[in-house]
Structure formats: structure tokens, C-alpha cells
């Protein structure tokens, strides 16, 4: 017999058809095309009964759109359009995939774009102060990212020769979150977690020994807002950032 009609197949999948006739059953048994079509229609009925709703109100579209714009702008912004400066700004990082341990930061390009536009105030301050045997070799202000509040400073120290980072932030964390301090490389590929920032916003962290003499590009101080999810990776939500002089 001929193929089953589209209506007949749809009815059968929906369970609203008269029972299949013997001739129709025979045809189905021998016709892969009709069997496949009926299978797909039945699958759609099955999946259609398990709805999975999209709820636009719960989607943080504004934040995502902002990040997209910054990311696209960071490529489009040529250094020639900014004020000439003595020191070239750090090159925007590549968008190559980061390994899982160091996931790409959503707001990463905010730093790059801000740096290109010369908006990071306070970077470049290099003061050397001697307090006891602690020497401040460089520092930067920490500025809030869009949508965040808080200000602070990060100072690179040498305590009896050992490299440390001292962080101070004036804003408290959100109640259901904690904060973590990171050193991020300007290549956009790597980062070191330095540790949890106490709620009073003050802490000093030892740096990995390899960074003792030079930061090797790990110039970006980042304070992230972390959920209590046990995931060791950066949450991609940052409160404040600053760039230490290279």
C-alpha cells in the first residue's frame, strides 16, 4: 500500500486516531520511512509533554549585553583613538579559551577596555615606603566594576624579602557570598587565587615564589564575589579591580 498520510501519522502519534488497520500495520512494518516519521512525531509528542519554560525575567540580559558590548568594543577600539601616553597600555587579552581552572572572565574586557581608555586611576603609583622591614614596592587603587560598589587599594610588599600582596577594601560583602582575591595575568589566560578576603576587607597574602622578583604579567588584582558552591573556579563576578604597574 501507499505511505501513511501525514494526517494519519500525526493522529497516530497524538493518540487521536482510529486504531491502525492491518494493512497500515503491515505497511509500517515494511516501510522505514513511515516508521521514522511516526517515531519523530511520537518523540515530539513525548517531549512536548515535558515543558521546559524560558523565563526572560530571570535572565540577566542587561549584564550579559553590557559584557558583549565591552568585548566587541575592546577589539574595535584602536589605541590611536586614545590619548597618546608615555607608556603603551597593556594589550587586550586574547579570547582564547581558558582552561577550566582559570575560566575566562565575563568582565575581563572591562579591564582591558578601561586600561585602553586610560580610565584606571591610580595605577602607576609607585611608592617605596619602609615600615619596619616591610617595603611597599608598588600599589594600585581598586575600582568597582559596573554595577558594583567598593573602593580599595592593593599594595605589593616585600616582607623581609618575601613577596606579599596587601589588600584593603571599604565595602562589605553580600550576606550570602564571600570574596576571594586573585592575581590575573594580562594575557587573559592564567590566574592565581591568593585566598579568601575576610569580611572586614583587609588581608595580606603571600605570593607564589615564582613571582618574587617580577609579577610576570600577573599585574591585575581582582576581588571576586563567590557563592558558597564549593566550585574552586572564579565566579566571573568581580567587585573591584586594579592593575599594578608592570
Amino acid at each position: 500500500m501507499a505511505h501513511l498520510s501525514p494526517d494519519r501519522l500525526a493522529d497516530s502519534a497524538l493518540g487521536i486516531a482510529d486504531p491502525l488497520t492491518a494493512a497500515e500495520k503491515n505497511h509500517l512494518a515494511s516501510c522505514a520511512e513511515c516508521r521514522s516519521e511516526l517515531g519523530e512525531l511520537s518523540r515530539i509528542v513525548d517531549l512536548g509533554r515535558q515543558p521546559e519554560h524560558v523565563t526572560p525575567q530571570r535572565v540577566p540580559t542587561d549584564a550579559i549585553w553590557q559584557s558583549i558590548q565591552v568585548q566587541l568594543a575592546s577589539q574595535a577600539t584602536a589605541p590611536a583613538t586614545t590619548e597618546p601616553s608615555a607608556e603603551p597600555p597593556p594589550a587586550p587579552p586574547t579570547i582564547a579559551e581558558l582552561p577550566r581552572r582559570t575560566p575566562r572572565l565575563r568582565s575581563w574586557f572591562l579591564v582591558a577596555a578601561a586600561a585602553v581608555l586610560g580610565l584606571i586611576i591610580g595605577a602607576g603609583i609607585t611608592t617605596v615606603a619602609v615600615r619596619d622591614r616591610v617595603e611597599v614596592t608598588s600599589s594600585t587603587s581598586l575600582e568597582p566594576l559596573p554595577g558594583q560598589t567598593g573602593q580599595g587599594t592593593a599594595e605589593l610588599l616585600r616582607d623581609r624579602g618575601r613577596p606579599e600582596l596587601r589588600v584593603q577594601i571599604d565595602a562589605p560583602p553580600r550576606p550570602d557570598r564571600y570574596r576571594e582575591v586573585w592575581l590575573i595575568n594580562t594575557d587573559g589566560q592564567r590566574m592565581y587565587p591568593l585566598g579568601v578576603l575576610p569580611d572586614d576587607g583587609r588581608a595580606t597574602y603571600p605570593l607564589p615564589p615564582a613571582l618574587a622578583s617580577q609579577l610576570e604579567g600577573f599585574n591585575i588584582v581582582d576581588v571576586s564575589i563567590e557563592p558558597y558552591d564549593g566550585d574552586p573556579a572564579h565566579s566571573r563576578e568581580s567587585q573591584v579591580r586594579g592593575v599594578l604597574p608592570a
Partner: protein
Amino acid sequence: MTQSSSARIVAVPGRVRVFSVVDDARPEPEVVGEHTDWGAASEAELSMGFARGDEACLQEVFRRLAPLIYTIAYRALDSSSDGEEITQDVFVSAWRARDNYQVEKGSLSGWLIGITRHRIADRQRARGRDLRLVQAVTNTSDVQVQPETLSTLIDRIVLTEEIGRLPHPRGSILQLAFWEGRSYPQIAEQLDLPLGTVKSHARRALRHLRTQLTEVTSWPT
């Protein structure tokens, strides 16, 4: 009970309008200038504007499709931050690779969903490596429950959107049948329609869903 009040029972507010290639009977725009009101554009119009590199068009595409992309990524990875990151990544990648998008080959939503599928699969593979590492470190070997496949999840989300978008009374009929488990005679009574009409609408709605699902999932990946 009237038809309109019945429709309200199953209407889900806030649903975005997503796929409109097949439904849209609107003619192609003669001239698409800089000041085109993309908010009222059909997906076909948006697809062409996107392919041409109109940034205002990108924003409208984002407005319409970001909730869908985000929901797919969020549900597949069970992480809001991964959902955000992948949504961002999909639109940035798509915009940069817009020369690869060919209007005649399929819908823009289908193309974006294809990119989303790749990004999620990459992330899931990376997680698989993490999981094996954790298991090696903690010396556990718990057998993981096989999660729903990504394709099935995407199909369910797309179908839910499509069912929500079906015009009345077709949408109401399918929502009552699929989501509320009503029988067709019950639906006929509730909507005050002949049983044959209800069945006929359901049949056509199913075939429409079949077409739409193929449309958005048939991009070569």
C-alpha cells in the same frame, strides 16, 4: 466558559517571541536603512540585517534570543554563571563569524542554537575532565547518572517555546493536551469547539512543531 477565558488559563505571560520564519507572512523589507525599527522586524528581516553587520540588529536579535540561549546553557550546565558566560560567548562569536551565516541555509535562531550546542559540549567535556580529576584525588568512583542528552534538552526547550507561541485556539489546545493532560473531548468542551475541529488543530499543530524543530536543529554542527 468562553474561548478567551480558557485561553488565559494556559497562557504563560512574558513569553518571548522567538521563531518566526515559517509563520511570518510579512514581505521582505524593500529598503532596510539605519533607522529601521528592528523591534517590529520579522526574523527573516533580522537575519539579513545581522548578516549585513547592522549592530542595532544584533541588539534586537540578542533581546529576542538571549533568554532562550541562556536557558539552554543554564539548564544544560546547571550554573547561572556558565549560562551567562556561554550566552555572551555565543553572541560575540556569532557576531564575529556573521560572514559564515547564510540566510538561505536556515534560521538565525537555528544557527545560534548550533553554536550554543558546541559551547555547552565543550564545557561539559571540560567538566568531565574535572570530575575525573576529583575522582582520582578523592579515590571515589561513583557512577554518575547519565544526564538528559543535550539534544533532548534543547528540543524540549524549543518545543515549549513553539507551543507557547501557537496562535489560538491551536496553542490552547496543545497546551491543555500536553501540559495539563486533558483529553480531546474535555478540551472540546472547555473551548466550546467541535471535537473534530480540536483534533484537526492538534494534528496541524503537531506537524507545525515537526517543521519548526527541524528548522532550528538541522544546522550542520
